[in-house]
């Protein structure tokens, strides 16, 4: 694994605009960066990322099954009680899921270490699945990369297959797509998923989460025309939905959700200590524990994370050398876990994080984020990769 400086493609910003990638620069700071790329060998990708991703995914599925059959584990994960039946039923009835992303610390040698799972509302999907692929094709065509260069990326192809599979199982092949208002990046991610759904032959209308309606006597949530929503993809986390005003009604209505309710088990950092409990010593796992009232202050070499947190918010770490780093945030109302600190590889000033994608149950691609800090945030840059 190397970070290699290369020239940018000609006119890539115009192309980005043409292709609907309107958040390549966020608040004046670059988000997509292509003045360098991360270089991997095929062996690194297949042995160190792809195979472990599928293995950890299987471990996660095993754990979901355990949690779904145990009220005690549901309680330990702070899953709200009114959601237990929905979680259990959605798992037992085999409701399919669409996608997830595992974040690994990996430096090119030694096993990749799982830092966390983003299995409910992962983003950076368009960048990884589409724009990164276009970059590789053009970089080869423009002589920036050698002709034999390749990329670990069949994300979009897999998404289309997975959507087609969902389409066969939902009413009128219609899947609504939703996110909250006033967030351009999330809207674009959902727009991309709508695009993928349309390519898979689905109807893919959009509705904002805030506009979803509850109609007296209706068996489904309703759209703005009070028409029933039979199935809906939401880029909006289960723990929030459960807490929202409509949360208590979710189990009473027949609307199908993607990701399904059982994903709430995995979108929770409490899954990390559970993974360690069940698969202690696995080479791709880091030691992790639930924080309790009697836990001592955070020692050196440990990271503290809330159960529910996104984009690096409310994470605190102390390196083995005693250096403290922390990101503030609003996620202070859930329990905490502690995870052994594992350094991310550093290239110049940048720490690199591997986002490894799972679509359906297959590992199928990756995207790299880098940040000058040790905690990856929403402002961390996306840098493409190639197998050379």
């Amino acid at each position, binding site marked *: 694994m190397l970070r290699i400086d290369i020239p940018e493609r000609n006119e890539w910003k115009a192309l980005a605009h043409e292709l609907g990638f309107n958040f390549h620069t966020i608040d004046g700071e670059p988000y997509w960066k292509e003045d360098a790329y991360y270089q991997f060998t095929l062996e690194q990708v297949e042995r160190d990322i792809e195979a472990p991703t599928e293995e950890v995914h299987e471990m996660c599925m095993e754990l979901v099954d355990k949690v779904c059959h145990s009220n005690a584990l549901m309680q330990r994960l702070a899953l709200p009680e009114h959601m237990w039946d929905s979680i259990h039923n959605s798992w037992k009835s085999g409701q399919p899921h669409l996608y997830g992303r595992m974040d690994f610390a990996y430096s090119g040698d030694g096993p990749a270490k799982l830092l966390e799972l983003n299995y409910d509302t992962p983003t950076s999907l368009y960048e990884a699945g589409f724009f990164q692929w276009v970059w590789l094709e053009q970089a080869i065509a423009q002589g920036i990369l050698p002709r034999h260069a390749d990329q670990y990326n069949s994300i979009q192809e897999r998404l289309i297959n997975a959507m087609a599979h969902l389409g066969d199982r939902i009413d009128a092949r219609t899947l609504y797509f939703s996110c909250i208002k006033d967030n351009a990046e999330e809207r674009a991610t959902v727009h991309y998923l709508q695009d993928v759904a349309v390519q898979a032959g689905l109807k893919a209308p959009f509705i904002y989460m805030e506009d979803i309606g509850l109609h007296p006597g209706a068996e489904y949530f309703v759209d703005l025309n009070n028409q029933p929503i039979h199935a809906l993809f939401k880029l909006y986390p289960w723990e929030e939905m459960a807490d929202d005003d409509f949360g208590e009604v979710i189990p009473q209505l027949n609307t199908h959700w993607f990701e399904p309710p059982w994903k709430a088990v995995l979108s929770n950092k409490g899954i990390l200590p559970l993974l360690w409990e069940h698969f202690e010593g696995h080479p791709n796992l880091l030691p992790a524990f639930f924080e309790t009232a009697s836990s001592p202050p955070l020692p050196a070499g440990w990271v503290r994370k809330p159960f529910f947190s996104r984009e690096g918010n409310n994470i605190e770490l102390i390196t083995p050398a005693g250096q403290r780093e922390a990101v503030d945030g609003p996620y202070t109302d859930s329990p905490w876990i502690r995870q052994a600190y594992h350094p991310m590889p550093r290239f110049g000033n940048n720490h690199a994080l591997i986002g490894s994608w799972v679509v359906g149950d297959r590992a199928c691609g990756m995207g790299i984020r880098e940040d000058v800090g040790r905690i990856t945030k*929403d402002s961390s840059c996306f840098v493409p990769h190639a197998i050379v």
Partner: protein
Amino acid sequence: MSKHDHTPHLPRRKRSGRLTLAMMGASAFGLTACGQPPQEEQITEIEFDEPRSFQSVEDCVAENVYTRSACEDAYKASLESVPRYSTLEECEAENGEGSCTAPTEEQSQAATGSTGGSWFMPAMMGYMVGSMMSNTNRGRSFERVYQEPVYRNRQNQGNWNTASNQATQRVSQRNDAMRSSVAQNRQAASQRRGFGSRSSARGGWGS
């Protein structure tokens, strides 16, 4: 030619061969920029004031409550709502002997837009006008004039006071019906904003 060009990479290729976008991009960009669809506006409440009866448009104008055009519009609307019959017998069977008449040319013009056509109606003795205040779920209120014809029939025997009392009753029945239909609508209206309420504080949910 370098050795690489002969190496068959395809079997172990880790990336897809072809990708397309169906709707994102330059043409679809406008779609996202369009923003949210407008919230449906529904009437949630209606209030009626006491209607006044007038024997003519001039009478209405003279009372100085409504403008001349409001008086004229209300008259026309009242006339349009008077039941019409194709024969005098049918009209009298319904409204009582001696209650019916053919419209004047002016009434015919106002009711149907043409002076032609032969039809009969209960003789119109005047009309009632009132105000109706509607409130909507978007917090808007608007005021509208409503009207009702006062006509001669079997029960009122052509007595103006009785006729206008009867018309007042009709108005209040109709208003009750409207109120209860609004109340029903309000009950049947969908609740929104049940999801995403804390979002403005947190900005986003992707990870």
